[in-house]
């Protein structure tokens, strides 16, 4: 493993990414989606609060405003859930090209006939994609961070939520990269990444159809339940290990796909 080669591969990936409009479009799109979701939830929260504090209900004076009418439960928590859904829509747009574009442009043969090992190629591409994903989360986190600060949840909670969002993004990116490595072109890579990400995002709908043991298993392999604990301010080793496992599994699939190229 050479860090010099790895550094240049990561640099190349980021240059190629920022050399195309996709990077800027996704950054703009996630900013737009987050701000729209945030202000929509904030508007709903203000309307409910306005009703409770109106002259008729006199909520503040009588103390009749329910406990759940607060900025955390009305704005922040639903925003995190919706942001997770938005990331499913955005992340495959970034990951679809990472391996598949190399195949369609013929540059995969160039990479595989240099001194880069297969592991270095996979690692470099994952690191570059995760760096961009971290930037994406940073951009999308401005409004949720404002909500956390305004609601007085504290820096610790803010940190836990950011780590959770980062883990979820890395998990989705890893799924997208594995699909890109197996797919023959970018369209197939994007569609298959959407399918896998939507399927594994939340299995709670299946609880009504399966027994308890199967329901628990499906819950354990779903992305959303592992993210929810971060959103509530808990940093759990088990949840971090889950997202790390998804990443390692995806890297193994991507590494295997390069072997398949040679024996096809």
């Amino acid at each position: 493993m050479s860090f010099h080669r790895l550094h240049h591969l990561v640099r190349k990936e980021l240059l190629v990414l920022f050399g195309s409009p996709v990077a800027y479009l996704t950054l703009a799109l996630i900013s737009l989606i987050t701000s729209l979701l945030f202000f929509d939830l904030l508007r709903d929260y203000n309307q409910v609060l306005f009703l409770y504090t109106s002259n008729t209900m006199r909520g503040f004076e009588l103390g009749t405003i329910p406990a759940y009418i607060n900025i955390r439960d009305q704005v922040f928590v639903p925003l995190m859930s919706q942001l997770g859904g938005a990331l499913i829509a955005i992340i495959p747009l970034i990951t679809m090209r990472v391996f598949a574009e190399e195949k369609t442009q013929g540059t995969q043969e160039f990479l595989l006939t240099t001194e880069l090992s297969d592991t270095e190629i996979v690692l470099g591409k994952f690191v570059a994609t995760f760096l961009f994903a971290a930037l994406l989360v940073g951009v999308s986190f401005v409004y949720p961070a404002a909500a956390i600060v305004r609601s007085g949840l504290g820096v610790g909670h803010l940190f836990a939520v950011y780590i959770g969002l980062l883990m979820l993004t890395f998990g989705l990116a890893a799924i997208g990269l594995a699909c890109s490595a197996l797919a023959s072109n970018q369209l197939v890579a994007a569609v298959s990444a959407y399918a896998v990400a939507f399927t594994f995002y939340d299995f709670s709908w299946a609880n009504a159809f399966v027994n308890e043991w199967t329901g628990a298993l499906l819950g354990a392999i779903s992305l959303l339940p592992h993210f929810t604990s971060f959103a509530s301010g808990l940093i759990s080793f088990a949840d971090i290990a889950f997202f790390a496992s998804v990443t390692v599994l995806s890297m193994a699939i991507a590494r295997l796909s390069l072997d398949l190229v040679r024996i096809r």
Partner: protein
Amino acid sequence: MKNSEHDLSEPLIHSAPRTRVDFPPTENISHGLQKYSKNGVDPKLLSSIVQVRQGVLRVRTTTPKNTEPRGCRVVAQNLTRHFGDHVALDGLNLTIEPGQTLGLLGANGAGKTTFIRLVTGYLMPSAGEVQIDAYSPTKNAKEVHAKIGYAAETSQLYADLRVRSFLRFAGAIRSIPRAKLETRIDAILQQFQLEDVQKRLIGHLSKGYKQRVTLAQAFLHNPELLIVDEPTSGLDPVQQEEVCNLLRTSQGERTVILCTHNLNEARMLSDRIAVLHRGRLVAEGTPESVLQHESASGLFRGQTLLGAHPSVDNAAPRENA
């Protein structure tokens, strides 16, 4: 020798510095050459008159090449590759000696690109083996890839990168030491006349320039084995001549596998020619012997006078060739 140990400061062309011989403008070139040879330079060493301008004759002299052949030895033994039921390469036996340029000829689908991909390790053989200086491309990929410079048929270039950025990336992943990388890139940009376009996006370049960038990245780490697949495909005659001139600079410097459809190109640039047809070697020998025996259309249809043994070096010429 490890790639990092290569002397990347050595010139790509074996040539002495250009020498100035001043003579009055009224004197002709032959007089200037006579004067030049009187200065103690053997006229046989004069390879070309580079420039005659303002009464100054600039002559490039050729340094006698090192008699020790450079490059690596490539041996293919019973090399076979299947794609499903299709046999792309069928029991190929071929040896390329160090410093030799092998012209690989054949029609589309003959197995040329498959052979190249087996040599580079991009594909694994179904049977048989290929060895590069006793290294297997699949088992010793790192050692083999350090020796290889590969310019593929389809330009394997990143359209969104600038020429210099791409060469920097190509050099770094081939373990050119950081301290030498920029100097080496400058030299290769000059060698391939890419200085004017070094800051342009590769996607915006003409096909001729893209082909030069492809060749430049293959030469960048001064490889012992250069593999070029259809280097002049799709280029106009002027660009073809430029690419051929670039490849000519490599002769004797390294082992070269030149994969082409163009018989003239193969004749001019190759020390030996091998002809493939439907995955089998149908002729092999010096350009004169192969092209003397076989008509061009016959070569590409796989016709040969040689029967079971494809070597034509000692075969009798064809009557109606």
